[in-house]
């Protein structure tokens, strides 16, 4: 697993984490990604998480569920999650399969995702102060 190019990257951008999946992940890699991401939210005290899934070939029931779990865990850790880059054909297959991302917010691309986060995160932090 340690050889070859990285399967995912988790980058810090201010108070956000930008997690990109670079290739198709199998189930255990997906679980490891989930663990890494949740851990880093705590490490970096992140307020928002963007998960870029543009490179995923398929979002089947397991993949969708894992993304939902990540978003829920991140929420419990105080971070807001946005999923970006779901490809049109992947979206089609997810709907046909009967899957969705539930209540998790989605955006078309990274830019939209960041815009959404900054509108939500700054307003909620403004309220709390």
């Amino acid at each position, binding site marked *: 697993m340690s050889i070859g190019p990285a399967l995912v990257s988790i980058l810090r951008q201010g108070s956000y984490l930008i997690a990109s999946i670079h290739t198709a992940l199998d189930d255990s890699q997906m679980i490891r990604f989930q663990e890494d991401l949740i851990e880093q939210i705590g490490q970096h005290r992140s307020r928002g998480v963007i998960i870029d899934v543009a490179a995923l*070939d398929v979002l089947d029931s397991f993949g969708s*569920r894992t993304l939902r779990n990540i978003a829920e865990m991140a929420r419990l850790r105080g971070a807001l999650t946005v999923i970006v880059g779901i490809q049109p054909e992947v979206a*089609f297959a997810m709907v046909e399969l009967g899957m969705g991302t539930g209540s998790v917010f989605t955006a078309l691309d990274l830019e939209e995702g960041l815009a959404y986060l900054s509108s939500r995160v700054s307003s909620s932090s403004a309220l709390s102060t």
Partner: protein
Amino acid sequence: MPKFGAHRTSDVSDAPEERSEVAALMPMVRRIVGARVSDRAAADDLVQETLVRVLAAADRVQPGMLEPYAIRTARNLIASGWKEQDRHKRNQHRLVDLRPPAAPDEEMLQREEHDAIAQALAHLSDQERQTLLAHEVSGQDTRSLALEQGSTAGAVAAELNRTRARLRVEYLLALEGTEPPTDRCRPVLRALSSGDRRRQREVGADLHVLECAMCARLSEPLIRRGQQREDEVRIRITADGDIVLARQGARELADRIGFSRTDLTVIATAVSELARNIVRFAGEGEIFVELIEMPRCGVRVVARDAGPGIADVEQALADGFSTYHGLGLGLPGARRLMDEFTVDSEMGRGTTVTMTKWRQKG
């Protein structure tokens, strides 16, 4: 081609006026068959067959009715061809042998690597060698071999399979020019060579291959055996990672006949669900993907395992039914994604799921 047709028909009847009348039907028959059968060779065969039948019936058919008779005949022939093919496809999985088929290149390699083979043969017992040579070289059938040995044809065939499996292993070892490093290598390689899953588990083949570098290298050609055809792909499913391999294999194969990107993803998603079911419930199994042309272009996926089986298939196909911590979308979801979907399951024997996606026209 028309020349050939005229020649064929002249074998059947000598009456020249009938012959020309039937030959005149040829373009029309060709059009009817061509509209329904895409394969050129199969279409030509059907045209020939139709004309032969029409000609044979020509003196029984009322004058002027020859044309409708030919149309009907052509349609019937096409329909019965499809029916037969469909029946064959539907029952195919019953005949499936989970062991990989014998490699067609064996004979060629025997010639090329004569020394290695001779050396490998020397490792067999006299009895095994004699039986194998009698069957493979002299062409003696298993029944007469069984008579000689006071055994049954089935037992001889099984024995031959085991001998071949051993021979493959010894051949590879002879090519390497080494002896295996541990006592466990030979049994493991033989189990892999024969494709006998139970034996592989008994000798701990999977684990050993991970531990032993030489067995890892030698087992590759043994496991890959029989994966030469272009229009099909077989993926062994034993772990998480194979789920990804299976869906990518299916996607690549389906891509060759021009499925849309959306359909490719749909197929990959359905394969992913079935492969995961195999890993979750049976531990291991295989996904077999093939391109089909009849009655339409499409891709067929067969997922099989020798796992515990599904107690209630109806229930498993219902949304939200889940026996592990999931969403219960595996089977019903895959069914929604594909055009055709059947589940064949027997408790304690395993499960076979067959699903098909047709390619949209255009």
